[in-house]
Structure formats: structure tokens, C-alpha cells
């Protein structure tokens, strides 16, 4: 039974990962990543990491992916720039793709060689013995006790990092009224930007709606 679940979850995880890379529309890439994350949560469950699986589904596939979906909906897929891109003639793109494929397969080959050549006997076993119980391996009680005793410093640093990241995101993405008027940036984007900052209320409403 666990083999069936494992192969199902593994196939979905790899297909989801391939979908993220291969699909053209970023929106479908995000949905494919959600499939990948849920399949990965199943694999975590097979490894008896109950809390990690729950966090993966709730935080990753839930909260973080909703953030992505919002930003993709706000920005759009950039397909209106496709004609522009074709006109410029992006010669580098096939080269880039081949290079990426080469780099990816080289890394994969190296990792697989390292795995098969490691000779770790413990890797071939089913892992450490597992005893059922309320404080068994991987349960919230187990992880919580570790987090608040041995790994308290990491826990606090992670929470502080999250706080700093939230403040930074607000500063980066927040509306900048004064700054834009004082120093209009030079270059091709400047006239359009001044137009947007100067006046059409539609743009402002869009920004408000996107928040």
C-alpha cells in the first residue's frame, strides 16, 4: 500500500515540477506548483513527518501560493509583450534553454552518482525504529519540544527574519507618493510613469484593488 502511495505521489511531484518549468502561462505554473507541494506533503507523511506535512499544505500550498496567485493576477502573464519580444529576435533563448537543460542534467547525474556511490547501508533501510504514541517521532509535541529547547535560537532567528521580511515587503511594494514626484527616474519608462503618477484615477484604483 505504501508503495502505491509513494509512486503516485512521486509521479505527481515530478510532473508538477516539470509543469512549473514547461508551462508558458505563469498562472498554470503556480497551479502546477500547488499540485507538486501537495504530493510532496504525501511523501512527508510516508516519512512520518506529520507536522511538516501539515505545515506544507497549510502554509506553503495555502498561504504562500495565494500570494503568488494574487501577484500573477495583478501583473498578468506579460503576453502583450510577446510581439515586442519576437521583433527583437531573441537569439539567446534556445541557447539558454540548452544550457539550462545541460546544467540540470549534469547536476542530476552528479547527485545520482553521489547517491548510488555513497554506500551508506543506513540509506537502504526503512529508517530508525518507530514507536507509536502521543509524543512519537514527527508529531507536533515532538517538534514543539525540540523547537523550544534545543533549537530555540533558530526558532527566534526565524521569527525575527519573518518580521524583517514582512516589513521589507511592505516597504518595497507599498505606494510611494512623495518619492516618485521628487525624483522622476530617467530613461524610457519615465514619461509613462509620470503619466501614471500624475493623474488617471483608474491606475490608482487598480492599485488599491490589488491590495
Amino acid at each position: 500500500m505504501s508503495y502505491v502511495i509513494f509512486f503516485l505521489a512521486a509521479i505527481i511531484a515530478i510532473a508538477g515540477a516539470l509543469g512549473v518549468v514547461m508551462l508558458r502561462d505563469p498562472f498554470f505554473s503556480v497551479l502546477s506548483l500547488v499540485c507538486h507541494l501537495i504530493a510532496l506533503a504525501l511523501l512527508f507523511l510516508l516519512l512520518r513527518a506529520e507536522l511538516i506535512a501539515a505545515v506544507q499544505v497549510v502554509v506553503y500550498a495555502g498561504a504562500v501560493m495565494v500570494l503568488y496567485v494574487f501577484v500573477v493576477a495583478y501583473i498578468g502573464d506579460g503576453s502583450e509583450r510577446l510581439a515586442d519580444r519576437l521583433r527583437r529576435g531573441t537569439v539567446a533563448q534556445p541557447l539558454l534553454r540548452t544550457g539550462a537543460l545541460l546544467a540540470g542534467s549534469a547536476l542530476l547525474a552528479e547527485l545520482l552518482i553521489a547517491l548510488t556511490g555513497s554506500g551508506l547501508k543506513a540509506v537502504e533501510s526503512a529508517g530508525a525504529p518507530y514507536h507509536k504514541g502521543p509524543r512519537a517521532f514527527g508529531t507536533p509535541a515532538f517538534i514543539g519540544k525540540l523547537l523550544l529547547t534545543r533549537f530555540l535560537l533558530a526558532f527566534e532567528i526565524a521569527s525575527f527574519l519573518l518580521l524583517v521580511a514582512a516589513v521589507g515587503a511592505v516597504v518595497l511594494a507599498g505606494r510611494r507618493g512623495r518619492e516618485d514626484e521628487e525624483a522622476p527616474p530617467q530613461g524610457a519608462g519615465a514619461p509613462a510613469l509620470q503619466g501614471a503618477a500624475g493623474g488617471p484615477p483608474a491606475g490608482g484604483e487598480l492599485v488599491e484593488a490589488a491590495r
Partner: protein
Amino acid sequence: MSIEWFLPISAIVFAIGLAGVIAKRNPLVVLLCLELMLNGANLALVAFSRMWGSGDGQIFALVVMAIAACEVAIGLGLIVAIYRRELPVDVDELGELQG
């Protein structure tokens, strides 16, 4: 379920993420591929945690998730700021910081 089955999956997901980071031009999709790489590493961490029967790897995976959330918040904030300034949302054209 043997531990060794999980490690190739993690390696494959990591390699796909690396290829995506190199090949993609939309910064949003580059961020998604970074998530793939982090998740591949997470799977290996949890697998090794199961192998040793200690929780260290799982704590490490949780910290990786927190860092991924930070990276997403900052990255998406940057992308929204780029979009607001009417700059192209394309990693190849945002080359002004090159030396």
C-alpha cells in the same frame, strides 16, 4: 518504505528547479523554480531525519520553509515594485546593475 527511494525524487526535483531558474525569463517563474529547489532539499532533509530517527532534519526543514516564505515576500514585493515603475518584468532586460 526504504529511505533510498526518496533521495532520487529530491535530486530530480532540485535539478528541474535549477534548469528552470537558468532558463526562465519571467521573475515570477524564477521564484517558483527557486521554491522547487528548496522543496527538493526539504525532501532530502526529512528523509535523512527519518533515517536517523532524530528531529533535527525536520527542524531544519521548518526553518527552510520560513526562509522560503521570507524570500517569497521580498521577491514578490520587488516584482510589484518593478511593475509599478513600468519597467519590463523580465530578468534579461533588467540589466542596469551589471558592472
